[in-house]
């Protein structure tokens, strides 16, 4: 039976009563659990039934007939057989197009290339299969926040095995990745800023074809997102020596990628100092780059504060604030230029930012001067108003002393 024919055979059956669910719902414990979970399963919602994976006849009311081997009943699926079972449908482009035309159908092919897939193929049932990541009987779409492979939950899903020292012992794999990842800027972007496109485990290691990137390929992996940095790095003098050391990882670590700062270049926490003596040309170059970044950062902070003060005072500084964005962009470019590892390039990029910051600072100072000028003008105006009111009052008093207003005059 072709996959498409299987589909057409399945759909009408989906509309019929499902005796698997009916009977298992009435049972207890582990026999009831799959039936209870299945109402949340994307396959159940699309009309698939237990029999589509486990075989048997879902329409038969008799238990023996429903779970008859003659009707293809397979019962419990061995872990090593799960990938192939899922692939029956998920590798069938014609079938998948009917449900989700954008869904890829190469997961199984990728899985076979993964460390997990290879281990399963070699007969290791402890290696991860589809259900270890996607769950079973309550499989949800990746976009569903309750799915174990939703971007926010994926690190925990991987960590369930990879942070388990007992489980990883026989593979001699470290178990600190999840803890380190939780300290990284990537996790911060994902969890605090809610940026679901921020990298998690699968972004670097792949999902179905999960495998650790080789040392020489790390820069390629980072470069998929940090394209500009990768381009600059490839022209730098560090490209060749870092290639055998892990590329980006040498300075930024792998899982615990922290917020980069000028402190990475110079000072007690400098990563440059791991290889370069501070007095060496490399050390001096790093210090010069750090100084350029710090100068631009502090200048921008000062002009930011000035513009914020002017804005709080009610001054219109939106144009200067817009210009400040350009200066911030120059700051980002300066940090990108660090990956040339040439002080001249960093100073040049910082110089552009400093020129803009000088402009915005002037705009902020002018706005505050204007504010003071307005307040001075207000004081003068208030004084003139007060004098006028006093003069009018004296005029009324003197006029009414000389000629009191008539107590009763004809009404008009």
């Amino acid at each position, binding site marked *: 039976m072709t996959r498409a024919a299987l589909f057409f055979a399945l759909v009408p059956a989906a509309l019929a009563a499902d005796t698997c669910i009916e009977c298992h719902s009435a049972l207890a414990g582990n026999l009831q659990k799959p039936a209870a979970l299945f109402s949340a399963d994307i396959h159940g919602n699309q009309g698939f039934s237990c029999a589509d994976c486990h075989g048997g006849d879902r329409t038969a009311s008799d238990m023996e007939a429903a779970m008859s081997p003659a009707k293809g009943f397979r019962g419990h699926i061995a872990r090593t057989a799960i990938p192939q079972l899922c692939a029956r449908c998920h590798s069938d482009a014609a079938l998948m197009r009917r449900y989700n035309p954008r869904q890829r159908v190469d997961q199984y092919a990728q899985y076979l290339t993964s460390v997990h897939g290879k281990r399963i193929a070699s007969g290791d049932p402890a290696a991860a299969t589809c259900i270890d990541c996607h769950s079973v009987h309550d499989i949800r779409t990746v976009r569903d926040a309750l799915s174990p492979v939703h971007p926010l939950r994926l690190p925990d899903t991987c960590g369930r095995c990879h942070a388990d020292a007992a489980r990883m012992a026989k593979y001699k794999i470290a178990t600190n990745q999840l803890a380190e990842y939780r300290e990284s800027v990537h996790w911060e972007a994902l969890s605090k800023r809610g940026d679901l496109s921020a990298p998690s485990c699968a972004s670097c290691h792949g999902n179905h074809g999960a495998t650790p990137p080789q040392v020489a390929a790390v820069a390629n992996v980072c470069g998929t997102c940090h394209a500009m940095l990768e381009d600059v790095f490839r022209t730098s003098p560090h490209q060749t020596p870092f290639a055998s050391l892990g590329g980006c990882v040498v300075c930024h670590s792998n899982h615990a990628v922290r917020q980069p700062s000028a402190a990475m270049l110079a000072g007690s926490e400098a990563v440059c100092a791991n290889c370069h003596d501070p007095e060496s040309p490399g050390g001096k170059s790093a210090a010069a780059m750090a100084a350029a970044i710090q100068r631009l950062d502090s200048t921008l902070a000062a002009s930011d504060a000035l513009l914020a003060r002017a804005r709080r005072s009610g001054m219109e500084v939106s144009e200067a604030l817009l210009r400040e964005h350009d200066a911030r962009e120059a700051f980002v470019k300066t940090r990108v230029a660090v990956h040339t590892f040439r002080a001249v390039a960093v100073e040049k990029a910082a110089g552009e930012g400093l020129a803009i910051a000088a402009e915005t600072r002037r705009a902020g100072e002018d706005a505050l001067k204007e504010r003071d000028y307005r307040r001075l003008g207000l004081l003068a105006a208030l004084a003139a*108003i007060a004098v006028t009111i006093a003069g009018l009052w004296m005029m009324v008093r003197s*006029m009414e002393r000389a000629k009191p207003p008539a107590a009763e005059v004809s009404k008009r």
Partner: protein
Amino acid sequence: MLLLRTDSPKPSRLGRTYSWFEERLDLRSISEFVAHKTVPVHSGTIWYYFGGITLFLFGIQVATGILLLLYYRPTASEAYESVQFIVTRVRFGWLIRSIHSWSANLMILAAFIHMFSVVFLRAWRRPREVTWLSGIALLGLALGFGFSGYLLPWNTISYFATKVGTDMAASVPGIGAAVARFLRGGEDVGGGTLTRFFGFHVAVLPALTSALLLLHLTLVQKFGISSPPWIEKRYPGGAGGVPRMPFFPNFFLRELMAWYGALGVLGCLAAIFPWELGDKADPFAAAPAGIRPEWYFLAPFYTLKLIPSHVWVVEGELLGLVGFGLLVAWWVLLPFWAVNREGVERTRLVTGVGVLLIAYLATFSLLGYFK
């Protein structure tokens, strides 16, 4: 002769000019009218100044509005930039714009004070019913000025507040959709709405206001300034016996002092808290959190928010709008229900309703602002 002495044997050039105008315009009758106009003097006289302050602030609105017109461009692509240009590049443009915005708010506040002083001093009594009605209509027009002017800078807050406001109009059954389409100049708030609101703000509303203001002031002149009944009772001659001061110069000079005071307050607000421009409206962006209208629409706005989406089978918003409509109509007709068939005034009812209305407006406006 009040304004100029013309009894010298050889009139000066100024005297001759005056005589020329006198011959053609009968200025003497005007000056005599002014010289004989009086204002009652009693403990509540201070409230009489608020009508004049409202008029003064309206004058400021007209003057600053004309100046803003020199640079303002009423199109969705240029409105925000033109206001930005006014406040950043035009000399004293920031001051003109800030004064225009602040005086609009102060004018509405002064108009509300004037309205409630009329209620509590019983100035709505016969024969001043039409004066009351014209005053309420002027307040309605002032709110219309506020609503239409709010959109003109085309910033985020004004854009979404107008969207909310016109959505409310759309929820009225029957004519609501047509009214909303008329206000918006299309299906949604856009460039057409801005042009239309600008037209209302600088042409339709000023024309109506000028006519009504003329009627209101004419009626005030015709019937004079009312004294409260409890003051009139103190004097044997009733209303005619209440002590009075000449309008010119005694009351006028005092009113002038009040205007200078208002100008000082206006100057302080404009210079210390310049009216913010905010960010340019983006019709494709999501409405920012905490969107709310100007303070004078806050009480009904917050009340509508409190009403459940459905009350029995009726839509909550519709129920609220109908309720407000009836309340406003009832308030407008105050001079007619405040007197019973025997001609006796329902003083306690009027005072009670006035106090309740002030309490409601103050409480719900504060709740709407802070919640």
